[in-house]
C-alpha cells in the first residue's frame, strides 16, 4: 500500500509516501527525524498484521512542508540525503517535493 501523508495546496504538493509493502516495522526512521514527524502505528489495514508501520504523525500531516523545512534548505537538497530516507534501509520512504 502507498500511504500518502500530507496535502496539496496552492504552493504545491507536499506528501511523504510510505510504501507499506517495503516497511518492515523496524522503527529506525522515528529517531532519525529531527522534527519527530514519523511515528510507528498499528497496522489497521490488515487484521492479520503483526508488525507496526511507520506513518506521519497526525500533528504534522497538515503542516508537513514546514515540519520538513529544516532538512530541505532553499539552497537545494537531494531526497536520498534526507535523514528519514537514509535511515530506511528498506527504501519505504519517499517525498513528493
Amino acid at each position, binding site marked *: *500500500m*502507498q*500511504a*500518502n*501523508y500530507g*496535502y*496539496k*495546496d*496552492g504552493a504545491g*504538493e507536499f*506528501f511523504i509516501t510510505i510504501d507499506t509493502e517495503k516497511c518492515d516495522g523496524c522503527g529506525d526512521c522515528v529517531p532519525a527525524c529531527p522534527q519527530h514527524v514519523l511515528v510507528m502505528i498499528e497496522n*489497521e*489495514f*490488515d*487484521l492479520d498484521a503483526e508488525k507496526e508501520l511507520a506513518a506521519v504523525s497526525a500533528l504534522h*500531516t*497538515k503542516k508537513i512542508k514546514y515540519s520538513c523545512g529544516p532538512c530541505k534548505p532553499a539552497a537545494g537538497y537531494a531526497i536520498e540525503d534526507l535523514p528519514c530516507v537514509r535511515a530506511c534501509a528498506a527504501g519505504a520512504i519517499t517525498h513528493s517535493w
Partner: protein
Amino acid sequence: MENAVQDQKKVEYWRWTESRWTSPDLDWRDGGVISAGVDVGSVSTQAVVMVDGHLYCSSSMRTGSDSPESANNAMSWALEGTGLTLDRIHATVGTGYGRVNVPFATRAITEIACHARGGNFMYGPSVRTILDMGGQDCKAIHCDERGKVSAFLMNDKCAAGTGRGMEVFADLLGVHITEVGEMSFRVAEEPPPVSSTCVVFAKSEASGLLRKGWPKEKVLAAYCSAMAHRVVTLLERIGVEKEFAITGGIAKNVGVVRRLAKEIGIEPLRSDMDAQLAGAIGAALFAKALHEKSAKGA
C-alpha cells in the same frame, strides 16, 4: 432570547435528513454472526448491523459534541424496533474521527480501510477508486478486488471540498442542503468556479457575487464546480480508474457529482445503498472478520 440563533422562518438550511432503515427480508434471529459498524464522523454518525454479512439495519444521524453519546444514539436508533440488543451483537468495529470513542466497540479501525471494504461491498469487487467526500475531509482510496487498500491520500487540511463547506453555503444562500445540487444546474451557462479553495474565503467571495446581483443558482454552480475541481486535483495523485465510486454525504449532491464526473470523464458507479453508510458497512464487515478470527482461535 431562546430563538436568537434561529432565523425568522425558523429554517435551518444546512440540516440534512437523518434516517434509519431495517431490511424487510432479514431477521437477526435466523442469522449466525451478527456484526456491527459505527462510523463516528466529524459531521454525521452512522451505525450499521449486518447479519451473516448482509445489511440488516442502519441509521444515519448528526454527530453531537460528545462522540460516545453520538455512537450510542446512532446504534440505539438503528436497533429500534428490531428486538435486537447490544449484547447479542458478536463484534463491533468503530471507525471515523471518533473511532476510539465508541464505548461498545471491540476494536477501532481507520476509516480509510473501512471505506475501501464498504465500497467493495456496495459497488462490487470491480471498484478500484473510491472517493470519500466526508464532512470534514476528503479521501482518495485505491483498492483491490477484495476491498484492500493499495494506496490512499487524505486531505484534512481544510474544509474546502467537504460536506461542512456545503452546509456553510446552504446556510449563506438560504437553500436547503438537499436542494443545492439540483438548483446549481438551473443556470443558462456554467459560471467560472469561485477562485478560492478555502470555505471561509469562498463564502466571502460568494457574498460579493450575491451583492453583484448573481442569482443563488449561479453562485451554487460556481461553488459546486470549485468543489469538484478541488477534489479532482486530489484524485490525480492516486490516479482514477474507470471503476470509480463516490461515498460520503457529498455523493448525494448531484451538483458536485455530475461536475466531477464531467471533469474526469468517468461516470461514478451507482449503488442502491446509501453512499453515506460505506464506512459503517466496512466496519461491520471487519467486525464479522474479527469475530470469525477469534472464534477460530478459541
